[in-house]
């Protein structure tokens, strides 16, 4: 069962996004004529470095940073590992990490490994979240200790879109002399970010989440932050990240950041309105459905909705027949046997966690698509519920 490109109704933008045509356009010369190495002495290579410079400025502008504070990496995961491992190395006497129970695997697994592989020398505090997916700031303030080397907390959650008050948390960390990292992979391009006015020391972002290609990421390192590179090697990125630059993708990412800045308002008006229409349409047309995550402290593009008594993979496969692309927090889709750790941390009951679907929109979605999805989902859920031994009927 293959689908033809262009036929898809793509509502899985927190997984990855379409590469913007404008991005492809600026990349092409670097995949053809301008193949030089930006580190070379000759002009042929040296002119390629111009592309990198422009991209660095474009990225910096989107997040309110200086170009020197931007280093290019291969992905968000690399940026995350780089930040956390650097902080642990520069403050080797400190062994405590603060994170949350709802982090992306890039941080979650890294912390698990740090606990296990170093013979539990590293201590990890995982902050709880409430039913809305929000953090208790008192718990956070109490968790900060003399021994804390770094706080790593996502800006926005990939599954629910819930936004954490990372700027406030970073200020608290700074007061206590603790480094602060945020995985902002889902937030960049969707909400305004101004790092100059924040106390954030490290920020990770990923190209393919904002209409640039896969395989390129960024780590923002606040000027003056002690830093140990993750990839040792050449003098690229001023010695902060070895390895020849993925020039075409970096140039593409730069252009994508420029576009994201231009479209930030559309994202928070038109896209948000589409998301709201989708959300309201589904919640009112499907009985026993509910929203997962805070209603307002949330990315403008994300709606995570649970349909009780049915299973996510089944829903997705039926949606697939209509070319509708989305994700699920169900156990069967994750390759593990347990449903999403994010929904479980929020205390979402099993009746709902297994039947959760994440819809994540982008500027490329249209109202017709939303109407189509709102029209199709209720019948899909109804057909699966007829089959479910637990479905108590609508009247209960």
């Amino acid at each position, binding site marked *: 069962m293959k689908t033809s490109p262009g036929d898809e109704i793509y509502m899985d933008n927190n997984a990855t996004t379409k590469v913007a045509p404008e991005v492809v356009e600026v990349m092409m010369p670097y995949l053809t004529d301008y193949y030089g190495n930006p580190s070379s002495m000759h002009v042929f290579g040296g002119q390629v470095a111009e592309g990198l410079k422009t991209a660095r400025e474009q990225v910096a502008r989107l997040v309110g940073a200086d170009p020197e504070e931007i280093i290019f990496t291969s992905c968000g995961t690399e940026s995350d590992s780089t930040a956390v491992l650097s902080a642990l190395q520069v403050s080797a006497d400190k062994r405590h990490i603060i994170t949350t129970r709802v982090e992306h695997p890039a941080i979650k697994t890294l912390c698990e490994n740090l606990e296990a592989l170093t013979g539990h020398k590293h201590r990890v505090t995982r902050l709880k979240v409430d039913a809305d997916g929000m953090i208790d700031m008192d718990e956070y303030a109490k968790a900060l200790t003399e021994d804390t080397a770094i706080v790593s907390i996502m800006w926005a959650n990939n599954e629910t879109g819930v936004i954490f008050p990372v700027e406030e948390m970073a200020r608290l960390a700074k007061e206590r002399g603790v480094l602060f990292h945020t995985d902002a992979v889902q937030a960049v391009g969707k909400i305004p970010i101004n790092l100059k006015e924040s106390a954030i020391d490290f920020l990770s972002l990923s190209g393919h989440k904002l209409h640039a290609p896969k395989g390129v990421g960024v780590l923002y390192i606040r000027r003056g932050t002690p830093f140990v590179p993750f990839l040792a090697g050449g003098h690229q990125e001023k010695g902060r990240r070895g390895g020849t630059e993925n020039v075409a993708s970096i140039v593409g990412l730069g252009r994508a950041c420029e576009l994201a800045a231009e479209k930030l308002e559309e994202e928070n008006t038109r896209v948000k309105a589409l998301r709201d229409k989708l959300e309201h349409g589904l919640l009112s047309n499907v009985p026993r459905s509910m929203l997962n995550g805070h209603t307002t402290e949330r990315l403008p593009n994300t709606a995570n909705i649970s349909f009780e008594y*049915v299973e996510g993979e089944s829903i997705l496969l039926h949606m697939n027949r209509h070319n509708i692309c989305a994700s699920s927090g169900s156990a*069967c889709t994750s390759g593990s046997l347990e449903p999403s750790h994010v929904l479980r941390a929020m205390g979402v009951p099993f009746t709902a966690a297994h039947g959760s679907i994440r819809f994540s929109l982008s500027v490329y979605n249209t109202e017709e698509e939303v109407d189509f999805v709102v029209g199709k989902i209720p019948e899909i859920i109804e057909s699966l519920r007829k089959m479910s031994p637990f479905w108590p009927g609508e009247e209960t």
Partner: protein
Amino acid sequence: MWEYTDKVQEHFLNPRNVGEVDNPSGVGDVGSLACGDALKLTIKVDDNDTIVDAKFKTFGCASAIASSSALTEMIKDKKVSEAEKITNEDIADFLGGLPKEKMHCSVMGREALEAAIADYRGMILPMAEGEIVCECFGVTDLEVVRAIKESKLRSVEEITNFTKAGGGCGKCEGKLRELLNENVADLAELKRADKKPERMTTLQKIKKIEEVLDREIKPGLRQDGGDIELIDVDGDFVLVSLRGACTSCAKSQTTIKEVVEKKLRELVLDTLIVEEAK
């Protein structure tokens, strides 16, 4: 994305026999919401012990729904005594195979069938009487051991794929490993079988065949008052002669093919053909 066969997709999109049989003769209710999949199988059995109707209700993924649908098709119009021989592998085969991580869906089908038949006969299922090993998914040691033996599982990961045990918090991993090691006799044999030489002299073959007959086949037959004797080995042809009660047994042909040949292929050489000496 899961790699589902066309047949799995077809049974998922157009499931057969959805619902509940009126006044069922037997009901099998397995799995739970918390576990992520559950199946309620209802069967109607007539006076001739034939399953005349079977329906299912399933909560779960595509392969769980397809396995349930397949199961109802497989047992309809079968004698209860025939239906109860259906294994989870049969269900998976019927569907042209399942991804290994999804084998537990076929196990759930078999469990529901057993539960429904036990309910019809007014019996209690022995499997439920074991001790819970995996608390996350409520899997008993008896269920794990059975899966190890029947599906020839060789790792904790495979146990999880087939029974879900160990797929939650992972605390029972040690216990699962113990169960695997305790049932290692079978495992060791399998390993030996793996290393079997490609070519054997006839003498080696005869020796090996006699060994397997003595150890694996004869004890069972003797319990039923029968016996078996190796007559000749000619290339891949193994001639045997059944003795005692076996000679008058209607199932003797099945015994030779399903039991003797299967075992010899597994433990000696997978090209062997067993026939009864006339």
